[in-house]
């Protein structure tokens, strides 16, 4: 997510410069995890749909589910995860210092994070982008018609910069209403201190669901920035990056091949489809190449289901957030989710 990108980067860059070391590359993260018997996963301190606590105090959500699947693939048990909750500022130092093995915290894949900060993004698990929400009573159907509108915006974020770009490109004027935190911005919009409110589209869905009169508000179709969110690991341990990458790909391919939490055990016994057999380990030697047990993908899928099941459970239409698959649908369903083949 774009929020606090700049400060986060500055913090990491600062720490690394002051200390005078580059990110330490722990050569065998996978072995460390196996011997420790737990995966250290960095998640958000609370983001609707992506990371939150249930009534029993367990962490759950879309980003959390990925780590549970990863732990199941590596250790055979989705509960063997130590959750490390991170803010926008300390997420990168935590990964760089080895306090966590993988960061699954709605982090936007950008050039500088990948190249300059010394991390490896293992893929994209959610294609987000900045959008607008406004009252239907405005009589506007597109963000491009918002000439002269007042916009609630969280300060010091890339959303602020994206907003300025969007209005400049479309040659229309706006009046920013700068606000410190997301929650305050939501309240300000609700109190009609601004005509529209802008943040990442997934956040807008969560915001809309809190309004008592949700139907009086609409999310405009324009998405003004690219925010591909995905898990990342430290650069320099390609084996571990491969494991993290192919667990994510396995979940996406499982959706494509129709492998679900319910039927995975049945399918693991062997099917007519060689690709399913390769993923689930009844054929081929993918597991050995990764350095994992034969049933790694079975366990990963059993943890929380395939990509579609995870999406629908935490973000989808039947949840209070009610987010459409949109870009996050499989490539053959009109989205851009496309995992490489597993052979």
């Amino acid at each position: 997510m774009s929020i606090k990108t700049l400060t986060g980067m500055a913090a990491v860059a600062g720490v690394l410069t002051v200390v005078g070391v580059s990110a330490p590359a722990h050569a065998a993260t996978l072995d460390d995890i196996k011997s420790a018997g737990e995966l250290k996963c960095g998640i958000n301190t609370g983001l609707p749909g992506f990371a939150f606590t249930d009534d029993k105090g367990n962490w759950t959500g879309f980003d959390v589910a990925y780590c549970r699947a990863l732990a199941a693939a590596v250790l055979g048990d989705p509960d063997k995860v130590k959750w490390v909750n991170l803010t926008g500022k300390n997420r990168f130092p935590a990964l760089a210092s080895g306090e966590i093995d993988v960061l699954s915290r709605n982090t936007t894949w950008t050039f500088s994070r990948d190249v300059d900060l010394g991390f490896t993004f293992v893929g994209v698990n959610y294609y987000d982008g900045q959008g607008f929400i406004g009252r239907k009573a405005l009589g506007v159907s597109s963000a491009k018609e918002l000439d002269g509108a007042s916009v609630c915006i969280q300060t010091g974020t890339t959303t602020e910069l994206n907003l300025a770009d969007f209005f400049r490109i479309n040659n229309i004027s706006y009046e920013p209403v700068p606000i410190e935190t997301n929650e305050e911005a939501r309240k300000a919009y609700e109190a009609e201190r601004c005509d529209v409110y802008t943040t990442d589209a997934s956040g807008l869905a969560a915001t809309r669901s809190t309004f008592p009169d949700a139907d009086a508000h609409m999310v405009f179709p324009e998405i003004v920035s690219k925010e591909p969110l995905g898990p990342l690991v430290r650069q320099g341990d390609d084996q571990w990056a491969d494991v993290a990458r192919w667990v994510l790909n396995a979940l996406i391919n499982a959706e494509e091949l129709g492998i679900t939490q319910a039927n995975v055990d049945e399918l693991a016994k062997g099917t007519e489809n060689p690709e399913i057999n390769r993923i689930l380990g009844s054929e081929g030697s993918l597991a050995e190449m990764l350095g994992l047990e034969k049933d790694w993908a079975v366990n990963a899928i059993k943890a929380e289901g395939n990509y579609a099941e995870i999406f629908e459970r935490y973000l989808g239409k039947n949840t209070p957030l009610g987010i459409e698959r949109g870009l996050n649908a499989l490539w053959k369903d009109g989205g851009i989710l496309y995992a490489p083949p597993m052979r």
Partner: protein
Amino acid sequence: MDQPQPFHRNPADMLPERAPPITATGPIGWLRANLFSNWVNTLLTLVALYILWLAIPSFIDWAFLSADITGEDRFACTSDGACWAWLDQRIGQFLYGFYPSDQTWRINVAVVLLIPALAPWLIDNVPGQRWLRWFSVVYPILATWLLVGGWFGILEEVTTDNLGGFALNLTVGLAGIVLSLPVGIILALGRQSRLPLIRWFSIGFIEAVRGVPLITLLFVSNIILPIFLPPDVALDSVIRVIVMVTAFASAYMAEVIRGGLQAIPKGQYEAASAMGLGYWQSMRLIILPQALKISIPGIVNTFIGLFKDTTLVIVIGLFDILGIANAMVSNPDWLGLSSETYVFVALFFFVVCFSMSRYSMRLERKLDTDRR
């Protein structure tokens, strides 16, 4: 005949003693003296009353009259008022964090045992004061054992990252308060020491720590330390927080106490020396009792600040009561209930901080022996 009579008044002619006019005593007198003494005060009183009249009924209506108190999620809250349905499901998390629910009795026991541990220090003439003082020396070890377990295999081990909610605020706050007072006293004395090494160290520590925000210290303990330490050395994060909070509060405490030390007339130091008391004796018997007494408001001020600072632990991924509230309102079932949760959290902090402040006022009155 016309002999001048000595002047005297017949007591029967005198006006009887009367109660003071009703406008000068009782509630009306109080109102006149405090709220309507002149036109500025009258105006301010009326404005304040008007604001209260606007705010209080609507708050009561929101918080109680039209509030929903039961339900499985926020969709069960259908009225316009507050939604307290989460209290039923989440109160355990707010109080104990992620502590295993079958073990929370250990936190309760630790809190109950806190009463006999604190009583001999806070209240006069508690029965068995001497024995209770010994108990309060043992208490930190006992409480640690109760919270973390392990050691003798009697209690199941619970790692400290499970500690959260109000229990975490209390643990960090109490440990910080108990440790920062002695450390602050030592630093304050060190700053006035005649030995340059001790003085320089104290000044350096105080100024360095006071010069940075607490949040920076927490970041340093969390982000920079692990880069220097070998990867297998893991400092417990609650201990890291307690160390940093204590260091931070001690620096402020030292300055508060230095203020007290400087207010003691030089004659007291000289008198102590003249009686043949050594440095430690004169400090313990003459100087510190007076200096600490006049520093009480400042000391308690630092305590209250420290207690409220415990909410900063969220930046290193620990969930105090405020962090638990934020994590809860991220759950789609409870989205958007931030007003309710913040009011609830504020109530906890108010009770603790207000009690500390009242106690310190009582203590000041009790010890106020020289300015009566």
